[in-house]
């Protein structure tokens, strides 16, 4: 019954953090806990400065995820593609570590002849379709995001549409930073569909600082407290993987 769960944090931001812990360190922490961190840099007409860009790339690299910078008009498509790609990457990682177990040496999928690769890819595809997925969405609501939130809302509804077409279960939750009173605020608890978002999002008032680090930290804590063990965790991973086949 337990098919294993892929856990992701999806961070949508438009620039540099300026408050609290180093977000790259927090992303490293997430990875240790079996959570992948994907980052999407959202541009309007402005450009993200080099420091912001580097932070976006570093967070994703450290969090084992994918980063991409886009204009708001392409946001929907990007959010969807990044999430799916990161899932494949995670599953690929699991499959590769399985291969190492079976074949002993440092064999990766690319070291196998193309014919064998196809069979393995089918397993990955199958898992992609059936694995359970948890995405905690972290939206930067600092002042500069004001005009981008409508596009973010659309993109997230679209993401929900894409993922709910899968056979596997989905859980989404939404956190914003900075929150009304705290650095981070939970807007939506775990839910299988993101439709609730339409109402809660329009009430948002963008404000103040960008505490990206604390936001990721809070996201990790929430995920650990509320969800089953992830697919990525070394010792548990194998167990889950075997069950899922």
């Amino acid at each position, binding site marked *: 019954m337990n098919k294993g769960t892929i856990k992701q944090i999806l961070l949508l931001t438009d620039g540099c953090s300026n408050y609290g812990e180093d977000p790259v360190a927090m992303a490293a922490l997430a990875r240790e806990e079996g959570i992948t961190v994907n980052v999407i840099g959202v541009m309007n007409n402005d450009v993200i400065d080099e420091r912001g860009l580097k932070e976006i790339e570093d967070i994703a690299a450290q969090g084992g995820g994918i980063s991409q910078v886009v204009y708001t008009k392409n946001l929907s*498509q990007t959010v969807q593609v990044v999430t*799916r790609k990161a899932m494949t990457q995670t599953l690929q990682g699991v499959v590769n570590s399985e291969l190492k177990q079976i074949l002993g040496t440092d064999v990766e999928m690319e070291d196998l002849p*193309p014919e064998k690769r196809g069979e393995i890819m089918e397993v990955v*595809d199958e898992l992609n*379709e059936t694995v359970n997925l948890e995405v905690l969405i972290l939206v930067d609501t600092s002042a500069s995001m004001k005009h981008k939130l409508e596009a973010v809302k659309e993109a997230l509804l679209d993401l929900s*549409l*894409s993922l*709910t*077409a899968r056979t596997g279960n989905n859980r989404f939750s939404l956190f914003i930073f900075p929150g009304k009173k705290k650095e981070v605020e939970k807007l939506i608890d775990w839910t299988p569909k993101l439709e609730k978002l339409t109402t809660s999002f329009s009430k948002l008032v963008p404000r103040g600082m960008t505490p990206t680090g604390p936001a990721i930290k809070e996201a990790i804590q929430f995920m650990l407290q509320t969800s089953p063990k992830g697919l990525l965790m070394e010792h548990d991973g194998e167990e889950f993987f075997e069950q899922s086949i």
Partner: protein
Amino acid sequence: MAKNSLNNLSNLPIGTAIKGKWHHNTYKIVKKLGSGANGVVYLTDWKGTQRALKLSDNPVTITSEVNVLKALAKAKGVAFGPALFDVDDWVLGSEKISFYAMEYIEGTDFLTFIKKRGLEWTDVLIMQLLSDLEVLHRGGWIFGDLKPENLIVSGPPIKIRCIDVGGTTKIGRAIKEFTEFFDRGYWGLGSRKAEITYDLFAVAMVMINAYYPKRFVKTGSEGLSQLIEKIHAKEGLKRRKKILLRALKGEYASALEMKRDLSLIKIQKEPISQKVKSSGTPPTRKKRRPLLRALETIIIVSVICFIYAFYIAGQLL
């Protein structure tokens, strides 16, 4: 880093020899055919034969597409996608680049063809496409990312072919790749599950795209009413409104059903354009037909009456 190598990959000089590590085939680059987010396609020469070669720095992409091409080959009968010939890795210094070799399909892309040869080709090409989709669907697959850029018109004889199978998905799974304009989810008209109706929606959008080559974006939340407005604005689409609407709403159970509706008889008569006038025959034939039919009915009925009268008379006597 990945971006850089893809950049290099899309600028390989003409004459570059690409040698496979596993099967030892050598392909010489003739020209670049195109590039996208997932890789680059070159026309190459393999022992004097033309082959299209798709290269990618992501072996996962290549493996997935090869899997689909193999499955399509198994669902034999139509040459829908390109035929697959070889899968291999090209070792370039420390890098390994995955590629596959396929049939080179020469032709014009769908929209360019329509622009050159006229909108009257739309129905024929769409009907050809629907026949191919029917076979694909029966084999358990959904094309997914159906759009004019993925459709090539080859020939003569004119035949629509599809060149990018990257979005092809098993029925019942989630659609892997899509393009917003052709995606029913974007228009708020259904899920992204791989279903026959998903492809048929895209077919309707391809038809609409033929009349709106520049496409248009969604305005407001009422996707369907916007599309209906667009259909009404073009005479050619308006005449096919019933079919388009059924496809957009997911009411066709199969590609074949949609194809049948597209056949000439069911579409409201086209206004006689100057080109058609010169040929002259079809309108006359259409006028004659109901008359002939009526005559036929009268004859049959009277014959039956005659026989029946005989029968009754026989019984009575």
